[in-house]
């Protein structure tokens, strides 16, 4: 979840530098926070073309509240099932984090049922963490289910992906970290998401991972991100698109890599920020094998996904977008 945009805080876009991803050709990217269920196949194709080889889809709020437990079950099940399959058709390895998001923690009756359901999903293959959890309005119910899910993560030995609030961000971020420490969680198991210039220093100083969401209008722009990368270096920093049903950009990671390269950040640092740090952090789940996407469609079973095509390697056929003929 990223964005409760209010659509009025959008500023008219200034004509930007023309997109040229050629300078990052051959680089591989890992987007550790993107809600693909809200995106189209065109996005998958564009992401694959831009070098994204793997991604993490955190469980989040679907834009309107769910009214029953079965909706949660179907959603979690689509994250480990259908969406994973859809992604594999474009050669992108799909992981997910599973959790009860902060907004819906406020529906306590349902939240109780979700807590009972979670153990059925968190041990599944490719589930690389509990997420995205944390605070939204910072209510008592949010506090309660955040704590319960920290305990669950501890028991399962899984990393935790923390959503930080839009409103009162700095205090919400501090509080999330304080509570994690209080529950005896090792900061290296915790990825604090949606950081900005105000929060990053403390997050890094306290030993947590700092993730930045490159999201137009409401979160970080990537020029600011480049400055942060210069200031803090690549240690324990990662970026993501958090693309969802709002105005967002599933190519945020490769685009930001391109901008970093233009602004003189080294290839090694770019790689850490856009690829390897996310893998290091979430591989603590024991559920990420880099070989699954370094040599895509090799020994992994995803290659056998033939879907509804007769193509080899499970890849989706390409349509010629420059043609008016649709065959």
């Amino acid at each position: 979840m990223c964005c409760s945009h209010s659509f009025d805080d959008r500023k008219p876009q200034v004509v930007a530098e023309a997109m040229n991803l050629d300078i990052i050709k051959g680089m591989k990217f890992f987007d550790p926070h993107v809600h693909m269920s809200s995106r189209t196949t065109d996005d998958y194709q564009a992401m694959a073309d831009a070098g994204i080889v793997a991604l993490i889809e955190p469980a989040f709020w679907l834009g309107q509240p769910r009214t029953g437990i079965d909706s949660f079950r179907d959603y979690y099940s689509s994250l480990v099932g259908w969406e994973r399959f859809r992604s594999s058709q474009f050669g992108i390895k799909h992981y997910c984090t599973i959790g009860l998001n902060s907004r819906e923690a406020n529906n306590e009756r349902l939240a109780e049922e979700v807590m009972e359901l979670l153990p059925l999903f968190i041990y599944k293959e490719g589930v690389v963490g509990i997420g995205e959890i944390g605070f939204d309005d910072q209510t008592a119910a949010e506090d309660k289910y955040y704590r319960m899910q920290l305990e669950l993560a501890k028991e399962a030995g899984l990393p935790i992906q923390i959503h930080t609030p839009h409103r009162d961000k700095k205090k919400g971020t501090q509080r999330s970290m304080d509570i994690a420490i209080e529950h005896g969680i090792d900061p290296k198991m915790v990825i604090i998401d949606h950081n900005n210039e105000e929060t990053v220093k403390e997050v890094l100083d306290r030993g947590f991972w700092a993730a930045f969401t490159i999201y137009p209008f409401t979160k970080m722009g990537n020029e600011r991100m480049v400055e942060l990368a210069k200031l803090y270096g690549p240690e324990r920093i990662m970026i993501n698109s958090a693309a969802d049903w709002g105005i967002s950009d599933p190519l945020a990671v490769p685009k930001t890599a391109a901008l970093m390269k233009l602004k003189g950040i080294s290839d090694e640092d770019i790689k850490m920020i856009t690829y390897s740090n996310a893998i290091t952090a979430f591989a603590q789940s024991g559920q990420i094998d880099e070989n699954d996407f370094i040599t895509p469609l090799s020994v992994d079973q995803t290659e056998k996904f033939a879907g509804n095509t007769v193509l080899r390697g499970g890849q989706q056929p390409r349509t010629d977008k420059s043609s008016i003929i649709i065959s």
Partner: protein
Amino acid sequence: MFDYDAERFRVLITELTRSNVTEETWHWLSEKFLAPETSAVNSAFAMMPRKTGKLPIAINHELWVEIEKLKPGFTLEGWTIDRIGRLCLLLHLDPTDKEKYVKTIENLFLAAEVNELVALYSSLPLFAWPELWLMRCAEGVRSNIGLVLEAIMYKNPYPISYLDEKAWNQLILKAFFTGKDLNKISGIDERANAELASTLVDFAHERWAANRKINPHLWRLTSKFIDDDLLTDLKRLFGEGSLRDRQAAALTAYQSDSVLAKNLLKSYPELLKAIENKELNWSSLTPEE
């Protein structure tokens, strides 16, 4: 309760599982056999690959043969250790409480990720109360995930024995629509029927009209139902088709009881000869260009 010697089968699968996992994993798993709580079964089922890894199973020839003999049509081909561990767990569920047994397994289906679905669907022929899994099997056929479909379609004896004609026909149509290897579907020729043949012929005409390719295996399912229209189609295949199409037309005519079709085949002696010499069959069609 079971339609095969489930007792013996369970002993053999247990032995096979044990020989493929570490002592520690075996200890973990065998404890779950004794735990009747559904939550223990649920988490053990989900956690299986974390404990067992996902390598292909190692098995000696005698055991392989004995297991496959107990359930004709079932195969261990392509099975991995996590899958055999999951099957082993399921075979240890108590089937006597019918309602609880079915509900436990059905809930695993509802929350399953892809590899779990593969394990569950390929285990369908081994579950107790086989007649109760019909709807579940038909639901699986509606999946759009290739691996899931293959677990149901390829070398799985459940659909041939239990799906009614309508559900069976859906399975075959789905196989064509999703580009599956028809040679791997158990019982494909035995369960050919007039309804299916007529739907497939409509489908073929639709593809022709749209200028799209037709999987020539489609024709094999029409061979027992050749009428004038189908004869026209066969003529078209012989006349305008690729070598692969002509081979399929020849095999279809050869398998048919229709005198007209057999006479038509006589006009293509080299194809007829290839069939009689056993050089040409449904597995040896010339690959698609």
